[in-house]
């Protein structure tokens, strides 16, 4: 049985890096990258435990594939929105306040 701690450490690092990226980056695309890192951490967690836990449904692996799929869908929507934002105001800086409609 392999040790659990290296993959778990990696999960933590990935998640932390992703979160940091999300919080620190001003560019919306880079924020997106951060989110992807976080999702990757979750996927790694699933895979790790999917391989250690005796699970007939192989849920860990299946769920990882689910996650990847969802992430792809998200990226599609996200890029569309970012494109719209860029067209609308010429930048994709997430630290800029949105316009008010009052």
């Amino acid at each position, binding site marked *: 049985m392999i040790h659990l701690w290296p993959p778990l450490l990696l999960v933590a690092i990935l998640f932390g890096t992703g979160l940091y990226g999300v919080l620190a980056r001003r560019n919306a695309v880079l924020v997106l990258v951060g989110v992807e890192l976080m999702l990757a951490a979750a996927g790694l967690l*699933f895979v790790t435990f999917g391989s250690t836990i005796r699970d007939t449904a192989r849920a860990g692996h299946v769920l990882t594939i689910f996650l990847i799929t969802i992430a792809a869908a998200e990226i599609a929507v996200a890029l569309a929105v970012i494109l719209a934002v860029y067209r609308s105001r010429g930048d994709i800086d997430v630290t800029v306040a949105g316009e008010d409609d009052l």
Partner: protein
Amino acid sequence: MNPTFGWLTLAPVLIAAVGAIGVLLLDALFPRLGRVHWILGALLLAGGAAAATPVLLDSAHRPRATLCTRGTCWYTVDHVGAGLQLVALLASACVALLAFPIRIPHERAPIQVALLLTSTSGAVAVAGAHDLGSFLVALEVSTLPTIALVVLRARHSAIDAGLSLLTTSLVSFAVLAMGAGLWFAATGTAQLESHAALQAGNNADLRRILVLAVGFIVAGLAFKLSLAPFHLWMPETVGASSVPVGALLSTTSKVAAVAGLVAVFRTVTDLSSASMAAVGVVAVLSMTVGNLMALRERGALRFLGWSTVAQAGWIVLPFTTATADSGRRSAQYLAVYILATIVAFSVITALAHAEGRQHVTRIASYGGVLRRHPFLGGALLLALLTYAGLPPAIAGLTAKVVALEPITAGHLWLLAVIAAANAMLGVAAYLRWVRIMLGASMDPEESDRVHPVHTAVVAVSAVALIVCSVVPQAALGLFG
């Protein structure tokens, strides 16, 4: 072994999901149908709602399960779940009808209808999801289309709000996914089952992971429910998107989140006799922030956004004690809230359509509404009083009773007192609007006639609200 497949049980999800594809196909075949799609969508949703009723009518309260293999089922609808499905479908149907009279480019209508149907099907599916996979997928299916719907309004403000919604939702989903991973790590199963949770709970190490998992899942769902501090997108988005989409965000989205919470907390009730302190903190924080911000908010739609934040606090309040009927109570409060929200948004849509959007975005411009449109004004008044929990809107009051009861039964005095103080704050916020409505008119010019579809939606939902005020059991009884 092949899984079982119960068409009837799955019908509420399927009608909406297949309907979304159908609408797109129809548009491909008959490109110039335009706004008729909304009617179609509303009919589909109503059909879905009808399909959700058999569980509710079952006097034995047996849950219906399907997609079962080897004794585990991926889709189970119990009474609470079916009730939530019904509420979500009906709310979406109302949104479709509200959107119908609004003039938009022909080609955009079918897309929006499809997005609405998709989002609704996701929300409906959450109510039946019993495993992490469908749980995550369904939640995301219900969220992503709403982002698109917001952005599709194509105003600067809407696009900016869309970006805000997008980033928050993505991060929240990541957190949710992490929570799901931790759950899997703790329990070793992808099923949201209580005996698995119970097993994990008995092991000190696993218990900690389990708690963290639940915490992450709750945090991820809290975004959707716009609980503080995951709420900042809410007022902005509701204020910037078109009014029916705002209604969708305030209603169907919330159903999906509550359904998710119900699924999670159902598994941990056996585990926790103590209070879920974190939920309590989030709940009262939400109420307080929502009410305080609503107190000074000048925009009507944003006000409703803040009000939703505050109401979300009340919605999750029952989960604090994590007892067997927490989910039911939460759903009951949600139902009343959604009814009031539909009324409020219907009135605002109708007014915006008749008088122009610039006349409804400020609370100050509601002066004299009761004179110009006694019927619409009266309905809005009733909705606001329902939010505030003041009779004659008894429905709102009974909902507050429902939400408070587990807290008091659990002797969580501090929480109860803060909730009481928030009841007061809420009244202060809502009465501000009511007072303006009772006051004199700001802009006396004549308005167009209110569109009959809008009138009908307002009438039906207002009557439903009145019925719920006279017989609150009508709303509360949906969930057994």
